[in-house]
C-alpha cells in the first residue's frame, strides 16, 4: 500500500460533543453518501471527559466540513484518529 493510499484510508474525526449532535452529523453525512460512524471517547482533547464524535475517511474531510456546515451542525474540534483515540 502506498503512503497516499494509507492516508486515504486513515480515519479522521469530528468531535461533536453530544450524542444527538453526532447522530445528526451522521445522518447528514449519510444523506451526502459519506460513510461515517458514531464513536465515543472518554478523554476529549480538552480533558472535559466523555465526548461523542463522528469518524470518517480522512480523504473526505473537506466534503464533511462542507456538509456539516451547510446542515448548521457545530463541530467542537477536528482531528485524525490518532490524535483522539
Amino acid at each position: 500500500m502506498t503512503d497516499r493510499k494509507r492516508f486515504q484510508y486513515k480515519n479522521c474525526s469530528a468531535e461533536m460533543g453530544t450524542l444527538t449532535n453526532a447522530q445528526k452529523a451522521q445522518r447528514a453525512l449519510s444523506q451526502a453518501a459519506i460513510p461515517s460512524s458514531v464513536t465515543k471517547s472518554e478523554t476529549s482533547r480538552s480533558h472535559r471527559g466523555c465526548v461523542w464524535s463522528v469518524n470518517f475517511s480522512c480523504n473526505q474531510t473537506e466534503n464533511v466540513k462542507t456538509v456539516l456546515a451547510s446542515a448548521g451542525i457545530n463541530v467542537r474540534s477536528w482531528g485524525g484518529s490518532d490524535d483522539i483515540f
Partner: protein
Amino acid sequence: MIYFDNAATTFPKPAVVVEEIKKCMQSYGGNAGRGAHSLSLKAAEKVFECRSLIAELFGAEDADRVFFTPNTTYGINAVLKGLLHDGDHVIISDMEHNAVLRPVWKMANEGRIEYDVFKTYTGDARQSPVRICASIAKLLRPNTRLVFCTHASNICSEILPIKEIGAFCHKYGVLFAVDAAQSAGHEEINIADMNIDALCVPGHKGLYGPQGSGAVVLGRGITLDTLIEGGNGIDSMMPEMPSQAPERYEAGTVAAPSIAGLCEGIKAVKRYGIGNIADNERRMCGRICDILCNTKGVSVYLPQYTGSIVLFNVNGLPSEKTAALLDGKGICVRGGYHCAALAHKTLGTDDGGAVRASLGMFNRLPEADLFCKAVREIVSS
C-alpha cells in the same frame, strides 16, 4: 369492556408499540448515550429516531430541539422553572390543569414570581380569539416573561386558539408555552407556525406510547435553566451541565424502552392520520352529546364543543358514584375533578366535579351507543 378514559391514558396501545418495547428489552436494551458498545448504540439509534419523529411531527427546527421527559407534568415543570426567574410575571389560562397551576402557585407562594389568570370565556357564545387575547393584554406587565396555556382542555372538548395567542405573545415580546397533554396526536400542531416557544407533550396519550414517556419541544433559540442535574454521557469531568441540548435537559438514564414504544406509537398515529383520528372522535363525541342532551336527568356541560371529551353528570348522583356504576357495566370513565381545579371552577362544576368520557383512536360508534344506553339505565334506576 368499553374504555372511555383516554384523556388519562390511551388504551389499548397499538400492537406494534407493545412489540417494540419487548424487542428493546430483549434485544437492544443498552443504556442509550452512555457506552459505545453495540447494544448501547442501538438503543441510542432508536432514541434518535424518536426524537427526529417528534421534531418533524411538531415542526421543530431539528431533533436536538426535543428532550424526553417521563410525562407532561415533568416537562411543564422543566419549562416553567427553566424559563422563569425571580421577579418574573407569568400569565396562565382559567382552564389549566394542576400540572401548570401547582408549580406556578408554589413559585408565587415562595415570593419568587407573580402570576395572573386570563379568561378564556369558555362556554360564552361571544368567545373569540380576539377577546381571549384582549383578556391577556389586560394582564401584561413590563416583567411578564411568559404566557402558559393549555391547548385542549382535559375536562371538555374546548380547544384554545393557540396560534392567535402565540402571535399575540410574540408581538408583545412575551414567551409562549403550551400544555399539549390532550391535543398532541388529536390536533395538528406546528410550533413554528403557532409561535410556540415550548410545547409539552405526553407520550402515553394521543401519541399511543407507554406511560413513562413524554417530551418537550423547544422553539428556535430557546434555552432553559436545568430542572435537574446529573450524568448525561458527555463532558463527564466537568461539574457543570453541558450547554448543548437536548442532553443538557436529560440528566440520568433515558427510558429507552418507553421511547422505543413511543416511536412506534407516533408512526401508528401518522399512518392512521391525525385528521382521521380527530374526525372519528368528533363523530362519536357528537353522537354521545346528542343522545345525552336529550336524556332527562342528565346534564351535559358545553356540548357545543365537540372533540374527544364529553363531560356530564347524572342529576342527583355524585360524579364518582356514576363512574362506579358505569364501571360495574364494564365502562371505564373518570369522575371527580380530574386534577383541574381552575377548569372546573371556570365551568361551574367545582361542587362535586363531573363524569368525563374521553374517546380515543380505537373507539367506535357502537361503543358510543352502548355507553349512552348504560347512562340511561343508571338514570332510570
